[in-house]
Protein backbone atom coordinates (compact mmCIF):
# COMPACT_ATOMS: atom_id res chain seq x y z
CA UNK A 1 0.00 0.00 0.00
CA UNK A 2 2.82 2.33 0.87
CA UNK A 3 4.47 1.56 -2.45
CA UNK A 4 1.25 2.28 -4.26
CA UNK A 5 1.09 5.77 -2.74
CA UNK A 6 4.68 6.45 -3.73
CA UNK A 7 3.88 5.47 -7.30
CA UNK A 8 0.83 7.73 -7.38
CA UNK A 9 2.87 10.61 -6.04
CA UNK A 10 5.63 10.01 -8.58
CA UNK A 11 3.05 9.86 -11.35
CA UNK A 12 1.52 13.19 -10.32
CA UNK A 13 4.91 14.89 -10.16
CA UNK A 14 5.87 13.44 -13.53
CA UNK A 15 2.67 14.62 -15.20
CA UNK A 16 3.10 18.09 -13.76
CA UNK A 17 6.59 18.22 -15.20
CA UNK A 18 5.29 17.07 -18.56
CA UNK A 19 2.64 19.79 -18.64
CA UNK A 20 5.25 22.36 -17.65
CA UNK A 21 7.59 21.42 -20.49
CA UNK A 22 4.93 21.20 -23.20
CA UNK A 23 3.41 24.59 -22.38
CA UNK A 24 4.85 27.10 -24.85
CA UNK A 25 6.75 30.05 -23.50
CA UNK A 26 5.09 33.30 -24.48
CA UNK A 27 7.12 36.42 -24.89
CA UNK A 28 4.90 39.45 -24.69
CA UNK A 29 7.26 42.39 -24.76
CA UNK A 30 5.02 44.61 -26.86
CA UNK A 31 1.68 42.91 -27.42
CA UNK A 32 -0.81 44.48 -29.80
CA UNK A 33 -3.84 46.18 -28.30
CA UNK A 34 -6.25 44.27 -30.56
CA UNK A 35 -6.44 40.72 -29.16
CA UNK A 36 -7.45 39.26 -32.55
CA UNK A 37 -4.42 40.79 -34.23
CA UNK A 38 -2.20 39.73 -31.33
CA UNK A 39 -3.40 36.14 -31.70
CA UNK A 40 -2.76 36.25 -35.44
CA UNK A 41 0.74 37.64 -34.88
CA UNK A 42 1.46 34.85 -32.41
CA UNK A 43 0.14 32.17 -34.75
CA UNK A 44 2.38 33.45 -37.52
CA UNK A 45 5.38 33.73 -35.18
CA UNK A 46 4.88 30.09 -34.15
CA UNK A 47 5.73 29.10 -37.72
CA UNK A 48 8.81 31.29 -38.09
CA UNK A 49 12.15 29.69 -37.37
CA UNK A 50 14.55 31.49 -35.09
CA UNK A 51 17.72 31.88 -37.14
CA UNK A 52 20.00 31.89 -34.14
CA UNK A 53 18.65 28.85 -32.31
CA UNK A 54 17.52 27.11 -35.48
CA UNK A 55 14.99 24.58 -34.27
CA UNK A 56 12.92 26.87 -32.12
CA UNK A 57 10.23 29.15 -33.44
CA UNK A 58 10.71 32.84 -32.81
CA UNK A 59 7.82 32.55 -30.38
CA UNK A 60 9.80 30.09 -28.23
CA UNK A 61 13.16 31.79 -28.40
CA UNK A 62 14.50 34.60 -26.29
CA UNK A 63 17.34 35.37 -28.69
CA UNK A 64 17.67 39.04 -29.52
CA UNK A 65 16.98 38.49 -33.19
CA UNK A 66 13.86 36.45 -32.37
CA UNK A 67 12.64 39.37 -30.30
CA UNK A 68 13.20 41.77 -33.20
CA UNK A 69 11.46 39.42 -35.61
CA UNK A 70 8.49 39.07 -33.26
CA UNK A 71 8.07 42.80 -33.18
CA UNK A 72 8.34 42.92 -36.98
CA UNK A 73 5.60 40.30 -37.27
CA UNK A 74 3.41 42.32 -34.91
CA UNK A 75 4.18 45.47 -36.87
CA UNK A 76 3.27 43.91 -40.20
CA UNK A 77 0.05 42.47 -38.78
CA UNK A 78 -0.87 45.86 -37.39
CA UNK A 79 -0.08 47.46 -40.74
CA UNK A 80 -2.78 45.24 -42.24
CA UNK A 81 -0.71 42.57 -43.97
CA UNK A 82 -2.27 39.16 -44.57
CA UNK A 83 -0.59 36.14 -42.97
CA UNK A 84 1.07 35.26 -46.27
CA UNK A 85 2.33 38.80 -46.77
CA UNK A 86 3.97 38.76 -43.34
CA UNK A 87 5.64 35.44 -44.13
CA UNK A 88 6.71 36.73 -47.54
CA UNK A 89 8.29 39.76 -45.87
CA UNK A 90 10.55 37.47 -43.86
CA UNK A 91 11.14 34.95 -46.65
CA UNK A 92 12.38 37.70 -48.97
CA UNK A 93 15.07 38.46 -46.40
CA UNK A 94 15.94 35.10 -44.92
CA UNK A 95 14.72 32.62 -47.52
CA UNK A 96 12.36 29.65 -47.17
CA UNK A 97 14.62 28.53 -44.39
CA UNK A 98 12.86 30.90 -42.03
CA UNK A 99 9.61 28.94 -42.33
CA UNK A 100 9.32 25.94 -40.03
CA UNK A 101 6.98 24.39 -42.59
CA UNK A 102 8.92 24.26 -45.84
CA UNK A 103 6.78 25.21 -48.87
CA UNK A 104 5.99 22.65 -51.55
CA UNK A 105 8.01 23.44 -54.67
CA UNK A 106 10.48 21.90 -57.08
CA UNK A 107 13.40 21.98 -54.68
CA UNK A 108 11.44 20.39 -51.86
CA UNK A 109 9.62 17.66 -53.80
CA UNK A 110 11.86 14.93 -52.39
CA UNK A 111 11.20 16.21 -48.91
CA UNK A 112 7.44 16.07 -49.24
CA UNK A 113 6.89 13.19 -51.66
CA UNK A 114 9.94 11.07 -50.77
CA UNK A 115 8.56 9.42 -47.62
CA UNK A 116 5.25 8.63 -49.35
CA UNK A 117 7.04 7.10 -52.34
CA UNK A 118 9.27 5.04 -50.03
CA UNK A 119 6.29 3.87 -48.01
CA UNK A 120 4.10 2.89 -50.96
CA UNK A 121 7.03 1.47 -52.96
CA UNK A 122 8.25 -0.48 -49.96
CA UNK A 123 4.74 -1.82 -49.44
CA UNK A 124 4.52 -3.08 -53.00
CA UNK A 125 7.99 -4.61 -52.81
CA UNK A 126 7.01 -6.37 -49.60
CA UNK A 127 3.80 -7.74 -51.09
CA UNK A 128 5.66 -8.96 -54.18
CA UNK A 129 8.32 -10.62 -52.06
CA UNK A 130 5.84 -12.36 -49.79
CA UNK A 131 3.81 -13.57 -52.76
CA UNK A 132 6.83 -15.10 -54.42
CA UNK A 133 7.91 -16.81 -51.21
CA UNK A 134 4.44 -18.27 -50.88
CA UNK A 135 4.58 -19.75 -54.37
CA UNK A 136 7.96 -21.40 -53.89
CA UNK A 137 6.91 -22.79 -50.54
CA UNK A 138 3.81 -24.60 -51.78
CA UNK A 139 4.48 -28.23 -52.67
CA UNK A 140 3.94 -29.10 -56.32
CA UNK A 141 1.18 -31.71 -56.75
CA UNK A 142 3.00 -33.88 -59.25
CA UNK A 143 5.75 -34.73 -56.82
CA UNK A 144 6.86 -38.33 -57.10
CA UNK A 145 7.37 -40.31 -53.86
CA UNK A 146 10.89 -40.67 -52.49
CA UNK A 147 13.02 -43.46 -53.85
CA UNK A 148 14.43 -46.07 -51.44
CA UNK A 149 17.81 -44.35 -51.62
CA UNK A 150 16.31 -40.99 -50.68
CA UNK A 151 14.38 -42.56 -47.87
CA UNK A 152 17.59 -43.98 -46.42
CA UNK A 153 19.30 -40.61 -46.69
CA UNK A 154 16.41 -38.93 -44.96
CA UNK A 155 16.44 -41.46 -42.16
CA UNK A 156 20.11 -40.85 -41.71
CA UNK A 157 19.52 -37.13 -41.43
CA UNK A 158 16.90 -37.56 -38.74
CA UNK A 159 18.84 -40.15 -36.82
CA UNK A 160 22.55 -40.01 -37.70
CA UNK A 161 23.87 -42.44 -35.09
CA UNK A 162 20.98 -44.88 -35.23
CA UNK A 163 19.98 -44.38 -31.59
CA UNK A 164 16.29 -44.93 -32.28
CA UNK A 165 17.00 -48.45 -33.47
CA UNK A 166 18.62 -49.55 -30.25
Amino acid at each position, binding site marked *: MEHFQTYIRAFIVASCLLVATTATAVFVEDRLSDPVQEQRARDIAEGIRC*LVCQNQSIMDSNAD*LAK*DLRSIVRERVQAGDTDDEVRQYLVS*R*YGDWVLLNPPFKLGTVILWVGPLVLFVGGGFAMIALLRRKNITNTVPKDLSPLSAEEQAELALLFDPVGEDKK
Partner: protein
Amino acid sequence: MKIRFLAPLLTFSAIAVVMAYALFYLDPSEIPSELVNKPAPEFKLEPVPGHEPGLETANLKGGKITLLNVFASWCVACLAEHPTLMELKKSGNVEIYGLNYKDKPAAAAQWLARNGDPYSRTGMDLKGRVGIDFGVYGVPETFIMSAEGKILDKIIGPITEKDLNTRILPLINGPTS
Protein backbone atom coordinates in the same frame (compact mmCIF):
# COMPACT_ATOMS: atom_id res chain seq x y z
CA MET B 1 21.17 -13.81 -57.87
CA LYS B 2 24.16 -13.35 -55.61
CA ILE B 3 23.83 -9.60 -55.81
CA ARG B 4 20.74 -9.80 -53.63
CA PHE B 5 22.89 -10.73 -50.67
CA LEU B 6 24.80 -7.50 -51.24
CA ALA B 7 21.66 -5.37 -51.16
CA PRO B 8 21.74 -4.60 -47.40
CA LEU B 9 25.44 -3.81 -47.59
CA LEU B 10 24.94 -1.51 -50.57
CA THR B 11 22.02 0.24 -48.89
CA PHE B 12 24.08 0.75 -45.77
CA SER B 13 27.02 2.09 -47.76
CA ALA B 14 24.82 4.54 -49.62
CA ILE B 15 23.35 5.87 -46.38
CA ALA B 16 26.80 6.05 -44.76
CA VAL B 17 28.20 8.05 -47.68
CA VAL B 18 25.33 10.56 -47.57
CA MET B 19 25.68 10.94 -43.81
CA ALA B 20 29.45 11.33 -43.92
CA TYR B 21 29.03 14.04 -46.55
CA ALA B 22 26.45 15.86 -44.43
CA LEU B 23 28.59 15.50 -41.33
CA PHE B 24 31.85 16.79 -42.74
CA TYR B 25 30.94 19.02 -45.66
CA LEU B 26 27.69 20.73 -44.74
CA ASP B 27 27.40 23.31 -42.00
CA PRO B 28 23.86 23.51 -40.64
CA SER B 29 24.55 26.87 -39.01
CA GLU B 30 25.19 28.46 -42.40
CA ILE B 31 21.95 29.51 -43.92
CA PRO B 32 22.14 30.20 -47.64
CA SER B 33 21.50 33.87 -48.26
CA GLU B 34 18.30 34.69 -50.03
CA LEU B 35 19.67 38.05 -51.05
CA VAL B 36 22.63 36.98 -53.16
CA ASN B 37 22.26 38.49 -56.64
CA LYS B 38 19.68 40.93 -55.40
CA PRO B 39 20.14 44.67 -55.01
CA ALA B 40 20.94 46.05 -51.58
CA PRO B 41 17.89 47.19 -49.59
CA GLU B 42 17.26 50.90 -49.23
CA PHE B 43 18.69 52.50 -46.10
CA LYS B 44 20.33 55.66 -44.80
CA LEU B 45 22.22 55.62 -41.51
CA GLU B 46 24.01 58.08 -39.30
CA PRO B 47 27.75 57.49 -38.82
CA VAL B 48 29.40 56.22 -35.64
CA PRO B 49 30.44 59.44 -33.87
CA GLY B 50 33.92 60.45 -35.04
CA HIS B 51 33.85 57.97 -37.93
CA GLU B 52 32.01 59.99 -40.55
CA PRO B 53 30.69 59.99 -43.19
CA GLY B 54 27.47 58.03 -42.79
CA LEU B 55 26.29 55.17 -44.92
CA GLU B 56 23.42 54.81 -47.35
CA THR B 57 22.39 52.59 -50.24
CA ALA B 58 23.77 55.00 -52.84
CA ASN B 59 27.29 54.52 -51.42
CA LEU B 60 27.13 50.85 -52.38
CA LYS B 61 26.57 51.75 -56.03
CA GLY B 62 29.84 53.63 -56.47
CA GLY B 63 30.94 51.78 -59.60
CA LYS B 64 33.42 49.60 -57.73
CA ILE B 65 33.20 46.44 -55.72
CA THR B 66 32.83 47.23 -52.01
CA LEU B 67 32.70 45.26 -48.81
CA LEU B 68 29.96 45.82 -46.28
CA ASN B 69 31.04 44.47 -42.93
CA VAL B 70 28.50 44.04 -40.15
CA PHE B 71 30.18 44.57 -36.79
CA ALA B 72 29.47 45.49 -33.19
CA SER B 73 31.55 46.35 -30.16
CA TRP B 74 29.86 43.52 -28.22
CA CYS B 75 30.80 40.98 -30.87
CA VAL B 76 33.79 38.87 -29.85
CA ALA B 77 34.20 37.16 -33.21
CA CYS B 78 34.51 40.59 -34.84
CA LEU B 79 37.84 41.02 -33.07
CA ALA B 80 39.06 37.85 -34.75
CA GLU B 81 38.51 39.19 -38.24
CA HIS B 82 39.49 42.77 -37.49
CA PRO B 83 43.18 42.39 -38.42
CA THR B 84 42.10 40.94 -41.79
CA LEU B 85 39.97 44.00 -42.46
CA MET B 86 42.81 46.32 -41.40
CA GLU B 87 45.13 44.51 -43.82
CA LEU B 88 42.57 44.83 -46.61
CA LYS B 89 42.27 48.55 -45.95
CA LYS B 90 46.05 48.91 -46.03
CA SER B 91 46.23 47.17 -49.40
CA GLY B 92 43.96 49.93 -50.68
CA ASN B 93 42.24 47.68 -53.19
CA VAL B 94 38.75 47.94 -51.82
CA GLU B 95 36.53 50.29 -49.84
CA ILE B 96 35.17 48.71 -46.68
CA TYR B 97 31.98 50.05 -45.18
CA GLY B 98 30.99 49.27 -41.60
CA LEU B 99 27.44 48.52 -40.57
CA ASN B 100 27.43 48.90 -36.80
CA TYR B 101 24.72 46.46 -35.72
CA LYS B 102 22.67 47.09 -32.57
CA ASP B 103 25.37 48.89 -30.68
CA LYS B 104 25.70 51.93 -28.44
CA PRO B 105 27.26 54.88 -30.35
CA ALA B 106 29.82 55.60 -27.64
CA ALA B 107 30.79 51.93 -27.31
CA ALA B 108 31.19 51.60 -31.07
CA ALA B 109 33.36 54.72 -31.27
CA GLN B 110 35.52 53.48 -28.42
CA TRP B 111 35.87 50.06 -30.01
CA LEU B 112 37.02 51.59 -33.31
CA ALA B 113 39.44 53.88 -31.49
CA ARG B 114 40.99 50.94 -29.66
CA ASN B 115 41.15 48.40 -32.48
CA GLY B 116 41.59 50.64 -35.50
CA ASP B 117 39.08 51.78 -38.07
CA PRO B 118 39.19 49.93 -41.40
CA TYR B 119 35.99 51.57 -42.63
CA SER B 120 35.78 54.48 -45.02
CA ARG B 121 32.12 54.93 -44.04
CA THR B 122 30.14 53.73 -41.06
CA GLY B 123 26.42 53.50 -40.34
CA MET B 124 24.77 52.89 -37.01
CA ASP B 125 21.93 50.41 -37.21
CA LEU B 126 20.70 51.06 -33.69
CA LYS B 127 17.52 49.01 -33.93
CA GLY B 128 18.89 46.32 -36.19
CA ARG B 129 16.28 46.96 -38.86
CA VAL B 130 18.75 47.48 -41.69
CA GLY B 131 20.46 44.29 -40.57
CA ILE B 132 17.19 42.41 -40.88
CA ASP B 133 16.62 43.92 -44.34
CA PHE B 134 20.01 42.49 -45.26
CA GLY B 135 19.09 39.12 -43.80
CA VAL B 136 21.70 39.40 -41.07
CA TYR B 137 21.23 36.83 -38.32
CA GLY B 138 24.56 36.94 -36.55
CA VAL B 139 27.52 39.25 -36.31
CA PRO B 140 29.97 39.41 -38.03
CA GLU B 141 28.74 39.04 -41.56
CA THR B 142 30.40 40.47 -44.63
CA PHE B 143 28.65 41.30 -47.88
CA ILE B 144 30.56 41.65 -51.12
CA MET B 145 28.75 44.27 -53.16
CA SER B 146 28.99 44.63 -56.92
CA ALA B 147 29.72 47.93 -58.60
CA GLU B 148 25.97 48.43 -59.09
CA GLY B 149 25.11 47.67 -55.47
CA LYS B 150 24.08 44.06 -55.97
CA ILE B 151 24.97 41.50 -53.30
CA LEU B 152 27.53 39.16 -54.85
CA ASP B 153 28.29 37.00 -51.86
CA LYS B 154 27.90 36.92 -48.12
CA ILE B 155 30.36 35.55 -45.61
CA ILE B 156 28.81 34.43 -42.35
CA GLY B 157 31.02 34.64 -39.29
CA PRO B 158 34.56 35.96 -39.14
CA ILE B 159 36.45 36.17 -42.45
CA THR B 160 38.98 33.36 -42.57
CA GLU B 161 42.15 33.21 -44.62
CA LYS B 162 40.33 30.81 -46.93
CA ASP B 163 37.33 33.13 -47.34
CA LEU B 164 39.68 35.97 -48.16
CA ASN B 165 41.58 34.02 -50.80
CA THR B 166 38.75 32.10 -52.40
CA ARG B 167 35.77 34.41 -52.07
CA ILE B 168 36.82 38.00 -51.56
CA LEU B 169 40.09 38.59 -53.42
CA PRO B 170 39.05 36.86 -56.67
CA LEU B 171 35.98 39.13 -56.83
CA ILE B 172 37.95 42.27 -56.07
CA ASN B 173 40.80 41.50 -58.46
CA GLY B 174 38.51 40.33 -61.21
CA PRO B 175 38.20 36.82 -62.65
CA THR B 176 41.47 37.03 -64.64
CA SER B 177 43.98 37.08 -61.79
